[in-house]
């Protein structure tokens, strides 16, 4: 889609109207999705949308608008922006929009497969999902296997960031996403499992692998019960490890949460806070990974950085605003929820470095314990207190060599204990789930609320 409002004209005209500095973000997205319902492909959707984010300051008064109506004129947009800025109170910490900060990193964010964004390709991939599931169902001996629901998404996104302090960057990104639920019927009993995938390339082989794996899991998790309440050793599969980090740990490394007093990591830069087996990087340079970027949403160049180095909290993630308050360079982690909103620190690709062993080895080592493959509710964990909780939908209870499927119980604990003194091992079986690369985790004990 062609942009209607001219960013240079916005900057020029904004300055002429008395705004002291401006920033323009243009996000153009073209997206096709194919849904799967009960093994059938439907509906299929195409959308094209361009949204402008305009932010400006007069001294320390700052505000922004998002314009998602392409009929909006330059005059209307600037009038709304100026009104918002003039009626906004001063931000005493305001340091201006960033200057040009280019660290020379050019990440691979776009796959040529997206040059021709046709709905037929999404349909073809959705059909691949359905056929792979059905075929695997036959192999594992299910009476019937279907993809109950699912979605395949292909999108290309162009992002341009321009400001009056010299930033003018553009980045083209491709997005491939797929998720779904498979159900197998074995002797009249249903068993289900979910799969998901996110990447910047059309990862067909990986998609098939995940669907096949999901069907295999429908055999493993047949006829689950609920375990007794108590304290158990705990093994988390890679995707559950990613969920736990997402909700309970990574928001705490946001420089904004640290300076504003809502992170337990405040005052702990350079201090050991996790087990020395834990090293976590934020890496925007991984080729065609879901969170890969060359610039963040305010045009600051990105780079790979170690956030926890063998348990030591090495650096918070920052945008330009927070970096100034922390008296450090921006880490290039300023991202927005809307083009006209301010940025906040957020991760690109989170990589938990491999240790040794993996899900199978850890499960074999358990005398009595719980292995968690799939959960709901982990996003409700509390990064402020470090409290982790989730409800298990697919798990295994290992008890004296006997392994049986379990579900519908709460697992709870504290992330700094789980990744601290209670950490037995970090696995070496890293798996990519959207922008997280995580192996399995083996934790000495966690609270279980079940029967």
């Amino acid at each position, binding site marked *: 889609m062609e942009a209607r409002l001219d960013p240079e004209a916005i900057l020029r005209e904004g300055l002429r109207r008395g705004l002291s500095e401006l920033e323009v973000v243009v996000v153009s997205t073209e997206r096709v999705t194919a849904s799967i319902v009960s093994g059938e492909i439907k509906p299929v959707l195409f959308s094209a949308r361009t949204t402008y984010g305009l932010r400006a300051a007069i001294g320390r008064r700052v505000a922004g608008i998002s314009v998602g109506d392409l009929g909006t004129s330059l005059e209307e947009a600037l009038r709304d922006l100026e009104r918002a800025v003039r009626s906004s109170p001063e931000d005493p910490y305001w340091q201006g929009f960033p200057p040009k900060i280019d660290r020379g990193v050019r990440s691979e964010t776009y796959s040529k497969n997206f040059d021709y964004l046709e709905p037929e390709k999404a349909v073809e991939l959705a059909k691949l999902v359905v056929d792979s599931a059905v075929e695997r169902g036959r192999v594992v001996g299910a009476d019937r296997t279907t993809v109950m629901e699912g979605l395949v998404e292909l999108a290309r996104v162009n992002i341009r960031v321009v400001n009056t302090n010299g930033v003018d960057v553009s980045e083209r990104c491709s997005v491939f996403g797929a998720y779904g639920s498979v159900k197998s019927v074995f002797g009249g009993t249903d068993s289900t499992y979910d799969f998901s995938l996110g990447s910047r390339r059309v990862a067909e082989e990986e998609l098939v692998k995940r669907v096949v794996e999901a069907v295999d899991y429908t055999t493993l998790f047949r006829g689950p019960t609920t375990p007794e309440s108590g304290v158990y050793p705990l093994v988390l599969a890679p995707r559950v490890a990613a969920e736990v980090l997402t909700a309970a740990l990574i928001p705490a490394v946001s420089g904004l949460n640290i300076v504003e007093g809502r992170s337990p990591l405040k005052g702990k830069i350079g201090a050991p806070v996790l087990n020395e087996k834990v090293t976590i990087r934020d890496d925007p340079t991984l080729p065609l990974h879901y969170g890969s970027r060359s610039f963040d949403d305010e045009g600051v160049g990105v780079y790979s950085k170690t956030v926890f180095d063998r348990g030591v909290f090495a650096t918070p993630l920052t945008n330009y605003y927070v970096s100034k308050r922390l008296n450090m360079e921006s880490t290039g982690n300023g991202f927005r929820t809307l083009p006209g909103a301010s940025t906040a620190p957020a991760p690109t690709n989170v990589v938990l470095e491999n240790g040794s062993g993996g899900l199978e080895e850890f499960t074999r080592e358990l005398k009595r314990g719980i292995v968690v493959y799939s959960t709901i509710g982990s996003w409700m964990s509390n990064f402020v207190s470090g409290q982790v909780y989730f409800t298990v939908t697919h798990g295994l209870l290992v008890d004296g060599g006997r392994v049986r499927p379990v579900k519908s119980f*709460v697992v709870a604990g504290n992330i700094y204990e789980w990744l601290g003194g209670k950490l037995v091992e970090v696995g070496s079986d890293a798996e990519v789930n959207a922008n997280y690369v995580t192996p399995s985790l083996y934790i000495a004990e966690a609270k279980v609320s079940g029967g």
Partner: protein
Amino acid sequence: MAEMVSLGFDPVSWIRKGEEMGADYVDVRYQEHTYEFILLDNGVVRESTVSKSRGVGFRVFYKGFVGYASTNDLNEPSLKNALEQALRIARALEGRSRPARVASRGVHRDRVASDYSIDPVDVDVSEKVDLLKAIHATLREERALSSVVLRYGFEKDRRVIASSRGDYVDFTRRMVGVGGVLVAQAEGSMERLSHGESRVAGWEFVKNFDWERLFKENAELVVGALKAKTLPPGKYDVVLDNEMVGLLIHEAFGHASEADIVMSGGSVLENRVGSVVASELVSIVDDGRVSGGVYLPYDDEGSPKVKVYLIEKGVFRGYLHNLETAGFFNASPTGNGRSMTYADNVLVRQTNIYLEPGDWDPYEIIQDTKRGVYLKGRGASGGQVNPATGSFTFTSGPSFIIEGGEVQGMIRGVMIAGNILETLLNVDAVGLDLEVKTSVFGGCGKGGQMVRVGDGGPHVRVRGVALGG
């Protein structure tokens, strides 16, 4: 012509164009959306943003195959391109999918807007900031608070739905609210509490509400939670307050009764219509017009939202439908076809789900409980369900132990887990204090789409619920 002037294009003429191109049925969804958001972070305005968007989505049926396409460029070539794209997609699905059937119903033509007295758009930003600053000032006395984030939100959502059937529904809703996240810290321990109040209303709601009292109560709660114990894991008899009941039934029953999930084979409620799924004290309703909830007189297919009993005295009565699922199940549309924006496809979604009141005084429920937990919704984070396995979960805010029929010491927020087909059978007391709420800051997510919903109920007691924290 008046319609074209007000929208900048004429939906009816585009429907005709689609039909002339070979479509059997076309509907056009136009949306104008404004969202104003102000965030005061420890006394500093961190965010003051207004987002405005406008766009058109076409849905085309061709021999029962469905294509969607949308654009936010309302000039003729872009609209034509989107319409053609939708038809092309529908045609491409022939032979690769199963055709859908749209349920028949009457034609609806209406123009309706939710009630308000003062349009928040007409209130200066400085007045909104002053309100947040006044709340912040009252919280400064509480030394244990290490972070106070306050937010103001206003949403104006106008949707116009026109269809080949002849429907033309033009509906505008205004929602407004104030919320906040308080963080308390003492002796190396930290806790947070997120809570707010929203209404389908105008600025008058914000102006007349006692925010200082609400946030002082929230501050006391979060500071109290710092010193509170964690509940030992296990099964407990629980008394749920109004907000917790809303979360329970939204997660534990609402999603599983959405007919698109049932149609996909992903709901444990499949083939359960007419069977006992809850205690006879339980009646659950989905209603788009209940007081306190989100106002939805029509859905995004132009169907009127009718009051639907999902459960009546413990018996499951039926599913929530859009036009397509109603066609599939030979049922009547219930007005639950909803999409997040004009660019999204229509799913079956809840509107306001609530449990109908019974005859227990809430205090009597507590007095009648020898030992248990009083679960409070203030500070709860939400919930999630896997309707295929039947597992659901949701969290509470800081809550209280019940001993000997009395509310005793505070405990930190807990997570609740249960099974759809079991938990509601264990309800043995239903209060008379119905309350339904909604939020302008969040909603319910499904299939990558978030929509505003409401939920609630009276106080309810459930025996033997798994709690962890």
